[in-house]
């Protein structure tokens, strides 16, 4: 069944994957079908792909409602009753909409409400009332109830603006009338916003993004979700909100164990919202995970923001030992073993991602999801399209978020489709040793920090001059919203 899906105009790349992930999650309940597939989408006439208006084919109204209610970026999912480029066309279209679709929602014993919504323009209260009155050709029999109506109808319109002013280019004005199936609960964002959270670190995940990640991971009651770079727990908070049992590890013991005092630590971040605490927090190294050898397929999802060395660098164990030739073979004297604080070595992004994929391939259940951020350097507006691959995984969603002129991060969602075989395990062990042997070489190659923060050459020499003379007209910002 086709529905009109109206999005909030932000995080454009994240909108469709969120709906697809949630549709997959709720379809599994009803049909046992594990589609993981993408949904069918259509645009209204002449609309740009970045437009907030989409048509989506969902299996049922029940699934559409569940998707909308749990989503973060869906303003509403509607059953379309009519659309047009002007009010005459709209009227025509609504009248030709079959009665059996409309009449059950227009009965005299029901209550209703009409909401006027615009995109790219603002209209006054008088104009809104006028528009609602103009719908008198629809045979509403029920009574109006603005607080708690049985049915809500939305009259939504876009304008035919030509100066984009940050909005996507839309060729023509479009008006829609639809019956509301469900809307997102964005009230949870102010509840979970970082500025009111007690314990924060420099890379705490923004609440909206954390919820999007939890939705990509299909976190829900009865599932076990793991974050190997847990930090202050900001990603697990979102997973716990959806009822998942959470577990986290970090190499920095001060962050996981101590925090900033008895009421300012990872535990208190969960207590603050009345969420169940993580079932396990430990200090462990993603490079040498302490899991027992027979353990596999325990986690339903792994969600994380790996350290990529731009705001925070990764560390792994084996510090001084890896500096061969500089310091001799390193042994801790026996009398100093208790309380010894082991030194750590920098952890390159490539190795970190390799370890993450290997861990996920082994520890995720079949159909389980790995959701993580991957950094991308942008050159000439185009992004490097090669993302990490693994024989056990299928990449199902790629969502980019621009962070600066030269640097963006991409949220990758991978679904486990193949078992972790002996051959795959062996290949991973060989690669692990290669990383260990050529520690310094990998560090140099995977150094993102210098690439992101070094001065751009083309701005200093003559060829860069053209870029400085920017036109003052507001331009469409696309992925910046």
């Amino acid at each position: 069944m086709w529905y009109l899906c109206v999005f909030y105009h932000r995080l454009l790349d994240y909108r469709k994957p969120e709906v697809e992930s949630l549709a997959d999650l709720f379809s599994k309940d009803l049909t046992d079908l594990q589609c993981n597939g993408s949904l069918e989408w259509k645009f209204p006439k002449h609309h740009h792909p970045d437009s907030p208006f989409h048509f989506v084919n969902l299996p049922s109204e029940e699934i559409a409602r569940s998707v909308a209610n749990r989503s973060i970026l869906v303003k509403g999912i509607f059953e379309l009753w009519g659309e047009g480029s002007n009010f005459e066309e709209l009227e025509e279209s609504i009248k030709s909409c079959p009665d059996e679709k409309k009449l059950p929602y227009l009965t005299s014993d029901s209550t209703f409400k009409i909401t006027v919504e615009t995109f790219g323009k603002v209209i006054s209260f008088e104009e809104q009332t006028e528009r609602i009155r103009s719908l008198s050709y629809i045979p509403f029999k029920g009574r109006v109830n603005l607080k708690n109506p049985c049915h809500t109808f939305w009259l939504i319109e876009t304008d035919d603006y030509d100066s984009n002013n940050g909005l996507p280019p839309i060729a023509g004005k479009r008006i829609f009338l639809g019956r509301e199936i469900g809307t997102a609960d964005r009230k949870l964002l102010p509840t979970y916003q970082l500025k009111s959270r007690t314990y924060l670190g420099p890379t705490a995940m923004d609440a909206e993004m954390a919820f999007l990640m939890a939705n990509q991971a299909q976190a829900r009651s009865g599932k076990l979700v793991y974050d190997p770079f847990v930090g202050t727990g900001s990603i697990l908070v979102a997973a716990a909100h959806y009822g998942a049992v959470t577990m986290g590890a970090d190499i920095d013991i001060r962050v996981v164990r101590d925090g900033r005092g008895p009421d300012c630590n990872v535990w208190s971040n969960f207590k603050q919202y009345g969420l169940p605490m993580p079932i396990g927090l430990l200090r462990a190294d993603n490079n040498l995970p302490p899991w027992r050898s027979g353990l596999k397929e325990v986690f339903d999802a792994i969600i994380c923001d790996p350290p990529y060395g731009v705001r925070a660098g990764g560390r792994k164990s084996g510090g001084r030992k890896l500096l061969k030739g500089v310091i001799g073979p390193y042994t801790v004297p026996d009398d100093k073993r208790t309380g010894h604080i082991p030194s750590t070595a920098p952890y390159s992004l490539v190795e970190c991602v390799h370890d993450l994929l290997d861990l996920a391939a082994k520890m995720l259940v079949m159909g389980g999801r790995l959701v993580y951020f991957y950094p991308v350097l942008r050159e000439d507006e185009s992004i490097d399209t090669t993302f990490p691959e693994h024989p056990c995984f299928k990449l199902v969603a790629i969502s980019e978020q621009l962070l600066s002129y030269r640097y963006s991060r991409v949220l990758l969602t991978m679904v486990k489709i193949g078992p972790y075989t002996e051959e795959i395990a062996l290949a991973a062990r060989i690669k692990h040793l290669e990383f260990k042997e050529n520690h310094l070489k990998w560090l140099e190659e995977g150094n993102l920090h210098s690439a992101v923060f070094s001065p751009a050459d083309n701005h200093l020499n003559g060829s860069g001059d053209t870029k400085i003379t920017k036109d003052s007209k507001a331009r469409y910002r696309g992925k910046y919203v």
Partner: protein
Amino acid sequence: MRLLTHNMLSSNIKGVANGFPLKIEVVKVVEKEVDFNIDFLKNMFHKVEWKALAEASTTMGYAELPEDVDAAMLDSDDFLHKFHHALLELHLEEGALVCPETGRKFPVNKGIPNMLLHEDEV
């Protein structure tokens, strides 16, 4: 540290062949109530090493778990509650996990096991 975590951990010191199960040295055990979730328990039942769990539970002062189990026991409410209590509610607040092969102690402070290896154990 809950026993679920204990059941997943082993000593990964270089050269150690059998680092599981880690012995528990108890200094302080606390009980923390956790919401009872049947789906989660059934999910975990097949992934847990039962013998290690039962032994660890006894070490922590809760000897109610049966020695042998089979999936049919998941229908028993009484069993599920005991399993739930041992797996999720017993919490090692202070103590250590000891490698069965080398005797190396991994300290557990404020409920967080410190599994990081020293430079010469990598």
